[in-house]
Structure formats: C-alpha cells, structure tokens
C-alpha cells in the first residue's frame, strides 16, 4: 500500500501530514545514528564518543515532543478519520517507541562512559554483534514505515527472534563470568542492563512493525501471541 498523503483536496493538510511523516523519519534517523555511534564506542572503548551520545539524546527527546504536539494539533484541527486517523495514531505510537529506543541507546552509552567493560572479549563481541543486528532491524523498520510496506513489516517482526536468542546466550555467559569476578558486582549489573536495553530495542522495533500492519490493514496484531 502506498501512503497517498498528497491526494487530499486541502493542500495544506497534505503538507501537514507529509511534514509529520518526515519529522518521524528524521527522528528515526537520529536514533539510528546514535545507535551506530554507540556500537563504535562499544567496540573501541571510546568514552568521549559515548559522552556525546548521552548528550545527544536531548535531540531525540525534543523531536518527540514536537511530533507529539503536531499530532495533537492535527487531531484537534483536522479531525482526521479512516486512514488519516490511523496514520496519525501510528505516528503517535511509533514516536513514543522511538523515544524509548533513544533512551535504551543512552543507557548503553552511559555504561561505556563510566568504565571499560569488565566482561570478556566474547561478551563484548557478542554485544557488538547483537547491536548490529538491532541496528539493522531498526533501519529496516524505518524503511518499512517510510514505504508502509506490510510484507517487510511482517518479516522484520520475525527477526527479533535472533535478538532474543543472542540475548539469552549472552546472559548465560555473563552469569558464568560474574561468578569468577564477583567483586565487580555493580559493574556486572550495568552490563546486564545494557544487554537488556538491546533486547528491548528489538521488542520496540517489533511494536513499530505491528503499528505499520495496523495502519495498512486496520488489524491489530498486537498481543496476537497472547491470544493464541
């Protein structure tokens, strides 16, 4: 389904929806950039870089607020219905998830700013690998949103399984190493938090895919697993 934003009789409404969508995409781009920088910082132990990432989370938060306000304004003034309403709601929801992804990225970056990881090379490379996996999923989710590509959304939705599998494996590895170096307990906690953050980013990308499916098909696929 192509998003036919430009067909309204009101040219200004077309413009507003187009701008809203672009704002969300550029916010997504910002989050994507933060995540890829975080992976570099993680790989190279670059605390300076990590600090700028923590600082830049403000940009994401600001965009989130602006998009929220714009959605509210459009709902109040334009009374969107049918696909227009679903689009605005989809954007409200993706916006919230995107902001939380930004927070998770910030959490990982914060850990890097404090000290080098206590973990082994195995965990570190595992984290980098998982990070690249979620970066790819995030990029694909954003592309699927830009094109409202429901087939891609369904496929990406399934890719989160790999992230979950990596997460479980890394958890086990951390538990083993923790026992050997228990004196670093608070730092291990940070590592666990960072791992958890990665896993959560995968989940939030899944949410985004669900919203895309909702927009296109009007079917709510959330919690479908719970019902089955």
């Amino acid at each position, binding site marked *: 389904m192509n998003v036919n934003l430009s067909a309204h*009789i009101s040219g200004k409404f077309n413009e507003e929806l187009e701008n809203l969508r672009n704002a969300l995409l550029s916010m997504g781009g910002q989050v994507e950039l933060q995540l890829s920088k975080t992976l570099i910082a993680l790989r190279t132990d670059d605390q300076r870089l990590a600090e700028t990432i923590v600082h830049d989370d403000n940009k994401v938060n600001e965009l989130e607020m602006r998009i929220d306000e714009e959605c509210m304004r459009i709902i109040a003034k334009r009374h*969107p219905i*049918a696909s227009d309403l679903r689009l605005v709601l989809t954007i409200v929801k993706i916006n919230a998830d995107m902001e939380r992804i930004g927070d998770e990225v910030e959490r990982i970056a914060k850990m890097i700013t404090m000290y080098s990881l206590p973990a082994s090379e195995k965990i570190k490379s595992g984290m980098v690998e998982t990070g690249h996996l979620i970066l790819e999923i995030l990029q694909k989710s954003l592309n699927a949103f830009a094109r409202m590509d429901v087939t891609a959304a369904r496929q990406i939705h399934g890719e989160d399984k790999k992230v979950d599998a990596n997460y479980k494996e890394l958890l086990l590895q951390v538990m083993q190493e923790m026992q050997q170096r228990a004196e670093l307990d608070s730092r291990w906690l940070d590592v666990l938090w960072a791992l958890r953050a990665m896993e959560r980013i995968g989940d939030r990308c899944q949410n985004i895919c669900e919203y895309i499916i909702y927009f296109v098909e009007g079917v709510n696929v959330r919690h479908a697993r719970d019902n089955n």
Partner: protein
Amino acid sequence: MFTDKGLNGVATDNIAIKVEDLSLRFGDKFALRDISLAIPANSITAVIGPSGCGKSTLIGCFNRLNDLNPEAKVSGKVYINDRNIYGLRQNIPALRTQVGMVFQQPNPFPISVYENVVYGLRIKGITDRRILDDIVESSLMQAALWDEVKDILFQSALKLSGGQQQRLVIARALALQPEILMLDEPTSALDPISTLMIEELIYKLKEKCTIIVVTHNLQQAARVSEQTVFLNKGDLIEYSLTDRMFTMPLHKQTEAFITGRFG
C-alpha cells in the same frame, strides 16, 4: 436478497425499512440505482455522500415525497412494516404520518407555538382540548423545548430562535407519533450549540422511533449514527456500522470521500 454492502455488520433483525432494488429516474436520468438495504428499527442511520448523490431522493422514497415530482419514476420495493409502500392502494397521508420529516431550514407555520404542534392532530380531526394539551406538552418535552416555550405557547412561532424553531418542527413531527423520523440536514442552518442540542435530541428519540439523518457534516454522522449509508452518483457504495466506516472503510470511494481526497 442483500448484497454484501447491506450486511456489513449492520443488524438484520427488527428491520424498520427494507429496500429492495430501488431505482429512481427523473426522465431518463437515474437518481438512484438498484439500492438494497435494511434499516434496523430504533437506531440512527446517517446518509452521507456528495451533493447530488441521491441522499435526499433516497429518504424521499420512504414517505413517497418524490411522488410530488411528476418526472420521478420509481421501481423496486420499499417495505415499512412488511408492507410495500409502492404497492397498490397505499394510503399516502397515513404513510406520511407514520414517517415524519424535518428539513434543513426550520419551517414553522406563522401561527402560535401551540398551534404548530397540534397542526397535524387537528387535520386528523382531534379536537379534545385535554388530549391536545397533553400531546403539546409531551411532544415539546421530547423535543427538549418545553422549558423554553411553556410560557409563550400562544406567541408566534416565528419569534423563536433558529435552533428553537428546528426543535419545534421536530416536536410537530413527534406529535403524530411517527415510527420513523427523517431529518434532512437538520442542523446545517444552526449554530454549534443548537446543533449539539439537536444531536442529543436525536440520540434520545431513537428509543421512540427509527431515525434517519441526511447530513453533509461527516463528524455529525460519526457522532450520532450507528450505521452509515454512503451514496455516490445514485449508487449505494457502502453501508456499514459507523464505527467501522470512520476507522476502516471497506471501499476506496468511501475512504476518498470521508478523508477529503479527490474521488
């Protein structure tokens, strides 16, 4: 009997009006083409569509108002109470008592408020003052106008505001205890507050009768109705539950119309 358009989640038991293959031509120009639908009793149905799509013509078929136009040729059937109103030997005045109608411009008669309400009753030959008084009070109450006019019942109805006049006209229709009440753009000449009062009234009235509202105001259709009929160029495009039509319409044409896109 019904196409899928007529069964899209809309209740099919307790039907007030059943329309089968209804077509209407003015000369050789079709104003309505093969319309089939069933309108549930004690519910509110909105009819939407662009100007000239046949909205008013459609509801004009339910009380045979189109008979007034000698060029109009109707084919098909409209059942009200299991009786085809286009069948032989129908009592048209009785039909129009049963199917009340309110128009866009409030049209009270230039007589007192009281006489406006009892107008139809007097034509029916009711003269008992007590009966008339009771009906005036109950009709004006139902039309949410009683409190505003109870002290000026014998003043000219033309002194009322537009919103009050429209409610008076509704009271006049209600005095005849219609089974079906049709409102053709009832609020397009009214301010937003009067509009909300009429909408609230419509909502309350559905306990008593089946209501059909023709409106250009899509938000109004969305607010007040349970099911919505979308007509375009004389064709029934979609007949769905309102909740569905305004969130996930089935047809591209419906989507284009309600979201304000080029058709």
